[in-house]
């Protein structure tokens, strides 16, 4: 697969504050690439640099072969953008918002109607095209923004926290649309999120914290880093020797948590029958837990991702602040 985005030692400082501290990554065409990290990790700043809305302090970024610094217009034409906080005119109808976008992105009139039907169908808003955006729910607005971002057939679609502040049902629906988009249209999707469970949907994930990329890989490979599944064995009665025996038998480090014994083991599921036969009669229960991205994040950064359910207002405030500091350059 050819590369569509290449980022080399990218740095962005706002005065004394370093938002992005020298990051490198490549994104292949046609994949869903996720930026996973807590709020303030530098995700939005990176997106804004790639979208030519902010100039990097140093480093280089190219998108579809165009340098973001020297060819901003070509870059802008190649991307679709869905911002963290909404950017629709809610006094216009869905159709008018799309028309406005088509005009700015030079989508010819002859294909506009067809494209509009196409993108509205993709996000299931076909029957609401003549409604004022003001009457839309948060999820519908987000879907309309995704549709708008696709109208000019961009090479890359940027989704900055696309599911922030949405209910779980809408979040699932948006993911459904994003995957459909990748499969049916072949658009590269670059998204940011701080929801661990959502990051699982990405082909590749970059874990970012304090402006630095800690790791880039597939979700599965990242989880393999943890060193296998977590096996939790519960003993029968007060079997004082079980901890010692488990450690000796499988050559693992056993941790006693409450009355259960925890240890790491590659392919834990296949390991269950062995434990049952080896410790027949001494084992009351066995649980296998696959490592989550949460565990990966913890391992890489030494702290848990701040699971704040950031409200839309918070996100907007943060966006506005970044926006302002950008303006003061």
């Amino acid at each position, binding site marked *: 697969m050819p590369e569509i985005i290449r980022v080399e030692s990218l740095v962005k400082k706002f005065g004394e504050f370093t938002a992005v501290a020298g990051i490198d990554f490549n994104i292949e065409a046609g994949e869903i690439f996720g930026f996973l990290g807590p709020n303030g990790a530098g995700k939005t700043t990176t997106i804004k640099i790639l*979208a*030519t*809305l*902010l100039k990097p302090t140093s480093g280089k970024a190219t998108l579809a072969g165009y340098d973001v610094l020297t060819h*901003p*217009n*070509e870059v*802008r*034409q190649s*991307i679709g*953008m869905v*911002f963290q*906080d*909404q*950017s*629709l*005119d*809610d*006094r*216009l109808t869905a159709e*008018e918002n799309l028309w*406005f*976008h088509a*005009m*700015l*992105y*030079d989508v010819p009139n002859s294909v506009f109607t067809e494209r509009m039907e196409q993108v509205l169908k993709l996000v299931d808003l076909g029957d609401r095209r003549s409604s004022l955006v003001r009457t839309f729910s948060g999820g519908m607005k987000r879907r309309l923004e995704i549709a*708008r971002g696709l109208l000019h057939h961009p090479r890359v679609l940027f989704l900055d926290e696309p599911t922030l502040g949405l209910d779980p049902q809408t979040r699932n629906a948006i993911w459904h649309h994003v995957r459909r988009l990748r499969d049916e249209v072949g658009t590269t999707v670059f998204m940011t999120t701080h929801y661990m469970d959502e990051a699982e949907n990405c082909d590749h994930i970059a874990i970012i914290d304090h402006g630095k990329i800690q790791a880039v890989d597939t979700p599965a490979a990242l989880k393999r880093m943890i060193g296998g599944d977590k096996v939790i064995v519960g003993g029968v009665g007060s079997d004082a020797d079980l901890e010692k025996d488990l450690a000796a038998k499988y050559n693992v480090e056993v941790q006693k948590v409450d009355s259960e014994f925890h240890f790491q083991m590659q392919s834990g599921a296949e390991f269950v029958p062995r434990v049952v036969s080896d410790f027949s009669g001494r084992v009351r229960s066995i649980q296998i837990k696959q490592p989550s991205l949460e565990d990966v994040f913890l391992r890489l950064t030494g702290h848990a991702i701040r699971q704040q359910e950031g409200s839309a207002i918070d996100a*907007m405030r943060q966006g*506005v602040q970044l*926006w*302002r500091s*950008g*303006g003061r*350059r």
Partner: protein
Amino acid sequence: MKALKVIYTIWFREYKTFMREKGRIVAMIGQPLLYLLILGKGITAGMSLKGSSDVDYLRFMYPGIIGMSILFTSIFSSISIIWDREFGFLKEVLVAPVPRWAVAVGKCFGGATIAMIQSVILIVMAPLVGISLSVLMIVELLILSFLISFAVTSLGVIIASRMQSMQSFQMVMNFLVMPLYFLSGAMFPMSSAPTWMKPLMMADPLTYGVDALRNVVFSETMIVVAGNVQQPLVEVARTAGLIRWSLSFDVAVMTASAMLLAVAGAWVFSKSN
């Protein structure tokens, strides 16, 4: 070609969203009525203009009210850039592959169009204050409205591009819009203003706009002066110093201001984030 398309698109959105805001249209009709019927009639009943008792205050004030309405409407149009910024829509425009100066120019055309609609509403009220209308005069008034509004909207774009929140709007009203209005000669003639104020009034571009509006508005009305002689209002006003310059001079100054401010507005907007 691309720039023209952008200007048209931005203009069309301004126009479309304006037409959907019924409250703004009501305000557009209500505000000048308030000024003309209450302030104008009230002042006319209480006093006469110094040294020009033949021109009643209401007639004197009418072109000033047109100027004021254009000023307020235009500033409001351009300030919408700040709304767009606060509500996020500005980002959709800024991330698009379009020249930003064209966006600013589109805004100016949008503001000017809305101001022209405002002027039409005011022109319809002319008979209320004893002013005669002609088709030529209406056309001239519309062109003048466009010109004045284009200049003021451009000025608004310059300010709005640098302003981050709606909170500072009150400051703009107090320290820019109101002084521009008071110094324009809309409420009182420059001839009777204190000496120290005259240079300030000369420096206010709106002064020339209001002067131009008086040139046009007074052109079709005849009034009766001492000795039962009928005289064109425009002549009486000129003699009394209520009109200072010729229409062509006023238009020249306004055009130059509009161009200068538009270029500055486009430049400041394209530098802003």
